[in-house]
């Protein structure tokens, strides 16, 4: 049953450009996929490690800016991809060392501050980042001679990366390392007493999370062929977190559903009203207050409760 569902999902995903109609929707599908990768990356920390980061747009943005910078310096796509991912990993390591000085709220506040530093650099260090005007790049890579210029081909390339990310996450969750990450979330002291190096486990989880955020940032760069400080703003970090929380933390499908929800609502909302930020904030508040466990599990719980409330009345009437 599971395998059938999985195969069906794969077929549907792989054929999106064939049946979805206009290129507009293909592009939205691509956006959903790379934001889903980002959300999966954030979920490693926010969901499995219990460390909520509000600075991940900084890592996402560092990858995008590094890629754009390497490309405008005249290097090839291989150098762009390798260079930007190595740089993102290095930045993740620095972020992790600083942010892991605290857990819980301290962690949140430090990541906010770190994210704002990256934003400040992107916005103010004009000689390197071109400030508010951002950096535009020309051309997407052409792996094995296949051009990614068209929306459909870019979608398929993104899908491949997405499936790799999802497979890695699945392995991660089932692995002993994944279990130890969850252990440091639930019982850090016991894990410590059992001889696990709690700090190191969190550090590695941070690197893993940062790596996929960087991959998503690089896809974002290739998709837009442009990067500006907007990509690293606190709003962007908050959006990523919203995807994770909206869908359901510490689940594999939750962040993907959340990414789809946010991207679709954002595109639909901005087509009809200007007030996307208001909608984003309102969704945040409503989800946190009424469905703290996420839309998918939350809706299921409310549904079950509604059913349970109906049942006794039905028997009493009968």
């Amino acid at each position, binding site marked *: 049953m599971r395998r059938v569902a999985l195969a069906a999902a794969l077929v549907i995903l792989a054929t999106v450009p064939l049946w979805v109609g206009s290129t507009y929707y293909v592009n939205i599908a691509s956006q959903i996929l790379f934001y889903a990768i980002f959300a999966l990356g954030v979920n490693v920390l926010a969901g499995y490690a219990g460390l909520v980061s509000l600075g991940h747009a900084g890592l996402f943005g560092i990858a995008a800016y590094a890629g754009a910078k390497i490309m405008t310096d005249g290097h090839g796509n291989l150098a762009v991809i390798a260079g930007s991912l190595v740089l993102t990993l290095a930045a993740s390591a620095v972020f992790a060392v600083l942010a892991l000085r605290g857990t*819980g709220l301290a962690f949140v506040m430090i990541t906010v501050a770190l994210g704002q530093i990256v934003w400040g650099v992107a916005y*103010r260090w004009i000689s390197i980042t071109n400030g508010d005007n951002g950096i535009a790049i020309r051309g997407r890579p052409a792996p094995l001679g296949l051009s990614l210029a068209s929306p459909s081909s870019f979608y398929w390339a993104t899908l491949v990366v997405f499936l790799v990310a999802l497979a890695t996450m699945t392995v991660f969750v089932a692995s002993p390392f994944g279990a130890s990450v969850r252990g440091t979330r639930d019982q850090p002291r016991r894990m410590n007493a059992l001889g696990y190096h709690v700090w190191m486990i969190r550090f590695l989880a941070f690197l893993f999370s940062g790596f996929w955020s960087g991959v998503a940032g690089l896809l974002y760069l290739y998709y837009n062929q442009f990067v500006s400080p907007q990509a690293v703003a606190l709003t962007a970090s908050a959006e990523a977190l919203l995807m994770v929380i909206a869908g359901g933390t510490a689940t594999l499908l939750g962040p993907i559903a959340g990414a789809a929800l946010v991207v679709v609502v954002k595109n639909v909302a901005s087509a009809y009203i200007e007030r996307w930020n208001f909608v984003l904030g309102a969704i945040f508040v409503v989800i946190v207050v009424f469905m703290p466990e996420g839309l998918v599990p939350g809706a299921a719980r409310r549904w079950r409760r509604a059913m349970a409330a109906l049942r006794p009345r039905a028997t009493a009437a009968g």
Partner: protein
Amino acid sequence: MNLWVVLAVNSITLGGLLFLLSAGFSLIFGLMKIPNLTHGSFFMLGAYLATTLIAHGFDFWTAAIVGGLLVAAFGGIVERLILRRLIGAELAQVLVTLGLSFMIADVCLMVWTGDPIRIATPSALRGVTTVAGLGFPTYRLAISLIAVVFAVALWALLDRTRLGAMIRAGVDDPAMARVVGIRVSRLFTVVFCLGAWLAGFAGVIGGPILSVYPGLDQEMLPLALVVVILGGSGSLLGSLVGSFVVGFLYNFGQAMLPELAYVVLFLPMLVVLVVRPQGLFGRQTA
């Protein structure tokens, strides 16, 4: 006038404003463990409300106090209706206050448009005061003075009154404070409103210097965060010292390394985190 003196005066002024902003943030965080990410929005909202009040014929100081009160009332509603439901769920509080800050920013953009609005300096404080042969902008001196008065008043409130003793008890050990009959939950509302009032008031008196514009909230919030991380949460002295450190770094950083001003601002915070994670004046917690 000497550039350095100008920078120093500007730094002290910004430090004073930051103290008003971060003292409330620090108290709320220290007592209620709520990282109130709407604090920057309170600052901006106070300033915007005051521009409307002034446009309706109120004078500057009335507008500052009433603007602050409106923000305090709003803060009280937020605390009672939303944050109250999320006690102990720190992550949820972070997210809710962040969501609220987006909503407030968007509503402000809708009501007051995207153009910067400058609040006129009160007429009595325009011009220059000469001290020791150097001319200082009178209004900036006034802000520094207000900050000092508030610092003393807050210290007296916390250290010398019954209410202050109750707040300190609540910070130290909320459960035990409840046992001895302090209504900690009512205290939460009082402190939250006080913090919101301070932020709104700071926004208004900062108006003649900073102006009010969309994005002011996102600019002030990180500064308040840095102050609190530097000084240690729940410590008035920490807020005071942290505010002036940040005020000086921000102004001197912008004058000397304009492109890296933001980085310069955050560096001492990183150093403090590495060396003394609880902040300069914070107490070690488990």
